[in-house]
């Protein structure tokens, strides 16, 4: 086992899956010679050549539309969109085609592609480089929306995404890319798309988060334990859509209280859906209104103010105490 950051872990998944399966093709802007603006594709063009790792013209719709054709042909394209803020250029290729080809062809064709893209704030970037718009894709029938929270799970989920028969949007939390290291085994690991996991067990309060918000959420859980003696159960969503609500409902049936955390804007965000599912499946177990700690309903500010925008452990702890205070 080697200690790796998320960039290295994703890179490992790409190396291993490309070695194993010649249908796997990488394409995008600067993924070849430059090895990716975050170096996620390091060493790949040297090892697999320009036929497997393609630097494309600068055109997001072209990249995604071409990937759809490649996937229909029987390949397993992984396209990189340099920042999620540029995926709106390819929005209609995902909504109109990637998500629908299986249905439109009545099962004759499928689009087993992965769209990898860095999302989220916290790296002092330019405009269009910090937003969190997973709700768009989660709202689109036919797409799967996945967001890993750390190196080891990112590697496992990416391998599962590449092998998935349906199109997967794979958001990489760029604030986590080089934030910490984890042991990542050399041997292959996968993790099923569509399953959350409980990362901390507890009986008093359920916390649901994902992606870059896992770290402040876990930090808040730890603080609450130390200062208040509260046992938080923390669920890492991993797959935003299709949402598996059962582990969340099961946890809330135990704790009776919940806080949902995401950096995406609040209104119509993933939190709204998660809370509704809890209402549908665990309402009579609730002992307090559910709280959500989220980004505000504004464009994320430039980096001088982004730390005041993004949820942090203090904001999460405060929301949790409010929920816990209801008797």
């Amino acid at each position, binding site marked *: 086992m080697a200690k790796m950051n998320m960039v290295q872990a994703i890179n490992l998944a790409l190396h291993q899956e490309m070695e194993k399966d010649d249908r796997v093709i990488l394409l995008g802007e600067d993924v070849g010679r430059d090895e990716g603006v975050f170096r996620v594709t390091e060493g790949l063009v040297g090892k697999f050549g320009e036929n497997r790792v393609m630097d494309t013209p600068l055109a997001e719709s072209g990249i995604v539309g071409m990937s759809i054709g490649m996937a229909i042909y029987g390949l397993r394209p992984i396209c990189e969109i340099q920042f999620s803020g540029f995926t709106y250029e390819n929005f209609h290729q995902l909504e109109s085609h990637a998500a629908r080809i299986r249905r439109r062809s*009545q099962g004759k064709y499928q689009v087993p592609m992965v769209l990898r893209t860095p999302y989220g704030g916290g790296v002092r970037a330019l405009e269009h480089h910090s937003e969190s718009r997973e709700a768009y894709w989660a709202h689109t029938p036919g797409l799967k929306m996945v967001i890993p929270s750390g190196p080891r799970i990112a590697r496992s989920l990416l391998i599962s995404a590449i092998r998935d028969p349906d199109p997967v949007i794979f958001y990489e939390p760029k604030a986590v890319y080089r934030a910490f290291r984890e042991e990542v085994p050399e041997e292959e690991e996968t993790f099923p798309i569509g399953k959350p996991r409980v990362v901390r067990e507890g009986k008093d309060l359920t916390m649901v988060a994902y992606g870059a918000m896992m770290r402040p959420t876990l930090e808040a859980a730890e603080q609450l334990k130390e200062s208040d003696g509260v046992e938080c159960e923390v669920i890492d969503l991993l797959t935003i859509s299709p949402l598996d609500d059962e582990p969340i409902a099961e946890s809330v049936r135990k704790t009776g209280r919940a806080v949902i955390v995401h950096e995406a804007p609040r209104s119509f965000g993933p939190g709204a859906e998660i809370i509704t599912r809890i209402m549908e499946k665990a309402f009579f177990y609730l002992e307090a209104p559910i709280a959500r700690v989220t980004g505000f309903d504004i464009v994320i500010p430039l980096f001088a103010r982004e730390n005041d925008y993004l949820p942090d452990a203090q904001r999460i702890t405060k929301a949790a105490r409010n929920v816990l205070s209801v008797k």
Partner: protein
Amino acid sequence: MPRTEIDLPCRVERLSILDEHGELDQSLEPDIPDDFLLKMHRAMLSGRRFDERLLNLQRQGRIGTFAPISGQEAAQLGAAVHLRRDDWMVPCFRESLAETWRGKDPASALLYFAGYDEGGRPEDDRNDLPIAVPVGSQTLHAVGLAWGMKYREKDSVAMTFFGDGATSEGDFHEAMNFAGVFTLPVIFVCQNNQWAISVPRSKQTRSKTLAQKAIAYGIPGIQVDGNDILAVYTAVGEAVDRARKGEGPTLIECETYRIMMHTTADDPKRYRSEDEVNEWKKKDPIVRYQTYLKNKGLLTDKDIEGIEEEIKAEIQTAVEHSEKMMKDSGDPLDMFLHTFQELTPALEEQKEELSRELSERRQEADHG
């Protein structure tokens, strides 16, 4: 540091072999076997009659909206006939004749126009994509398919169809550009039918031709008389040959005309003159092709009558077959199929919910 000129291929070739009066340029006449010439004639006529029957069914309320192809038979058939079984056809939504030529069951097409998703399924033994409604967006799929062919070292091609309006779309630009950069076997067939619903070709671009757009991507482009099947056949044949040899994509602009409405949901009288339509009717692709075949001694008026009768019977059979298919496709719960390879837990729940609701409604209806 003087001002200098860069040498560009600034001329665009235009090809016409059989003019609107049926006059033939013998030096350019393609070498096509007689039986194939007749087969193409039958297909064109069948495409026209199928269109007319569809319009009739639509006006009776038996099918929904569809996009007629009348007037464009030569443009799409002259291109599609070059495709082999291992090639891919990537249509937009005005290629019912090309699709039928490729093996699409007309009954299945009718099923689709009657609002059943099942009718959209391409035939199992053909590599064709289903129709794509968002204009121009499908051209990129042809690029991806062609990249797959190149990667797997096949000599097959991807042929994509689109209209004059699509050339204004960003995806058209990206598709042409990608196909050029990666030297891919894509045949871009533009059916320039002069109108994008109510917007004339002159308002899509200031360019003199659509074919010249190829120059900017460093690929060959040619304009052909799109109502002249011999010209379309020749130009597309050359493009397909080049693509199979690894020489990359071509843009073929077929100048043609949509004789009917954009779709059955609009009225062309609102935006174009009857005079213009009548001028184009004189250039009908089927009439001139029949003249050509008669002059060659391959076809008589009596033959045409016989073919018309056969086509009529075939279409009637397809209509009846489609009505049977509609009866067999009645289960509303089938709407949940094919969103993902497997139903997700949430979709299972929603399907169950609809199933319960439907059976409750049936019970209520039964018990008055």
